[in-house]
């Protein structure tokens, strides 16, 4: 690891200034992914701007009934917060399905969104990887890709986004608050992470020097039934092979509101808009759910060794949708 400068920022303004003054700098929050990548030689920052002590460690109720989560709220605290557990259970469940108790105690909300793929080729500087080194090729495409993408991938990159939290936030229509050299802005989370296309080195739409300051959860989905289910190679402490986050409101047997997102399938959390459109306003029955999810997954293009992900994701989504739909009133 090469030597680096270290600056502890007290305000977002100070952080952005310190970052701009140091080419090759990175923001450091919990560091559970960044420090690991530095040890692996994947990240080689010249300076770390420590944002972990910025005053962004609170959850606040918004006047409209939504919730604002500060960027440095730790994953464990977010998962345990009574407002999150009561109003956005899918978020709490997704957080608790990820990592370990030790990691969740340190990892932050902002950092979780910005964690990098766990693709083995990305994490090994001795291997080709267009995300780590543009133009070097994709080792996974014809190599080991059992854990890789089945949706939205390109010949340049077949990596998946590793976060569970982001999948729940995607189903919840969350928005991300950003602050950077050009000021503050807010973007929909669905527009924040990118598909790889020709530039897999860019995970997100974050501009140079921009910092995540918070995440907004909408009032419209507060209290809606929601849940997360994840499949992995062991019972705990492993990344998703596939996962599904669902928010579902049903009235008189008809779907009145739905959010469905998949994890483990793509370069970003996969918002299932096609499936959502196919169930909204329809009867909340297993047959309708199955038809809708199949329509969404018809776009899947599995690689030779990961076709198993398609039926796995399908069954996870159907299980959660069916579980959240109230049993039909018996006549």
């Amino acid at each position, binding site marked *: *690891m*090469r*030597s*680096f*400068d*270290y600056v*502890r920022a007290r305000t977002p303004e100070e952080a952005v200034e310190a970052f701009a003054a140091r080419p090759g700098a990175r923001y*450091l929050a919990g*560091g*559970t992914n960044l*420090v*690991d990548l*530095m*040890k*692996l030689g994947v990240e080689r920052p010249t300076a*770390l701007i*420590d944002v*972990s002590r910025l005053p962004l460690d609170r959850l606040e109720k918004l006047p409209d009934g939504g919730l604002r989560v500060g960027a440095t709220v730790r994953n*464990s605290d977010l*998962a*345990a*917060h*009574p407002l999150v*557990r*009561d109003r956005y*259970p899918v978020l*709490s*469940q997704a957080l*608790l*399905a990820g*990592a*370990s*108790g*030790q*990691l969740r*105690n*340190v990892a932050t909300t902002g950092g979780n969104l910005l964690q990098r793929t766990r693709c083995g080729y990305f994490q090994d500087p001795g291997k080709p990887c267009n995300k780590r080194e543009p133009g070097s090729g994709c080792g996974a495409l014809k190599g080991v890709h059992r854990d890789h993408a089945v949706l939205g991938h390109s010949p340049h990159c077949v990596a998946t986004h590793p976060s569970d939290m982001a999948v729940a936030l995607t189903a919840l229509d969350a928005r991300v608050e950003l602050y950077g050299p050009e000021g503050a802005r807010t973007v929909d989370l669905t527009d924040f992470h990118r598909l790889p296309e020709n530039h897999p080195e860019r995970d997100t739409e974050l501009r140079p020097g921009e910092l995540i300051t918070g995440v907004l959860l909408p009032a419209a989905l507060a209290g809606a039934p929601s*849940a997360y289910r994840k499949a992995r190679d062991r*019972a*705990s*402490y492993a990344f998703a092979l596939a996962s599904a986050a669902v928010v579902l409101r049903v009235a008189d047997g008809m779907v009145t509101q739905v959010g469905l997102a998949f994890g483990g399938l793509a370069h970003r959390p996969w918002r299932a808009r096609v499936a959502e459109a196919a169930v909204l306003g329809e009867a909340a029955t297993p047959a309708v759910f199955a038809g809708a999810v199949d329509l969404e997954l018809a776009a899947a293009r599995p690689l030779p060794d990961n076709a198993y992900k398609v039926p796995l994701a399908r069954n996870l989504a159907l299980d959660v949708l069916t579980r959240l739909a109230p049993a039909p009133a018996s006549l």
Partner: protein
Amino acid sequence: MGSEIQRSETTLRVNGKPHTLLLDHRRVLLDVLREDLGLTGAKKGCDHGQCGACTVLADGRRVNSCLLLAVALDGSEITTIEGLSADGEGPHPLQRAFLDRDAFQCGYCTPGQICSAVGALAEAAAGHPSQVTDPAAPAGRPVALDRTEIRERLSGNLCRCGAYPRIVEAVEDVIP
């Protein structure tokens, strides 16, 4: 300038004692504990946050000390396995339970297992749910720990000897 080693003065309170050190920014807490302070209880297993052998408590919360840059912890209170029991008292109840249950073979993961269990018990008492906690359980109330809960909450600590059944029993023994 490019090859210059950059350092900062950093103060850590470790097991109740303050230590002010001039630290290379690259150094992680685990290495500072073991190499500078002679506290070799926390172990280096994977060095990538995947095995839990390096688990200590930072400001009362269990963490992987291999992934924390020491400079970023300036002012923090660190508790290692060596500091779990107060001076002059016997072993911490969890240390006692691990001995009574023979909850180890080689012992390499044990300090991490015990520090992790101390943190996990505090989290459950503070009402933190886990993946296996019933989502309908009331928020903010202590969570009762059964074997399924203990196994899930300690999943960040690997034991290559496979002493898990007795580790779970040892933790069960100290549940209030």
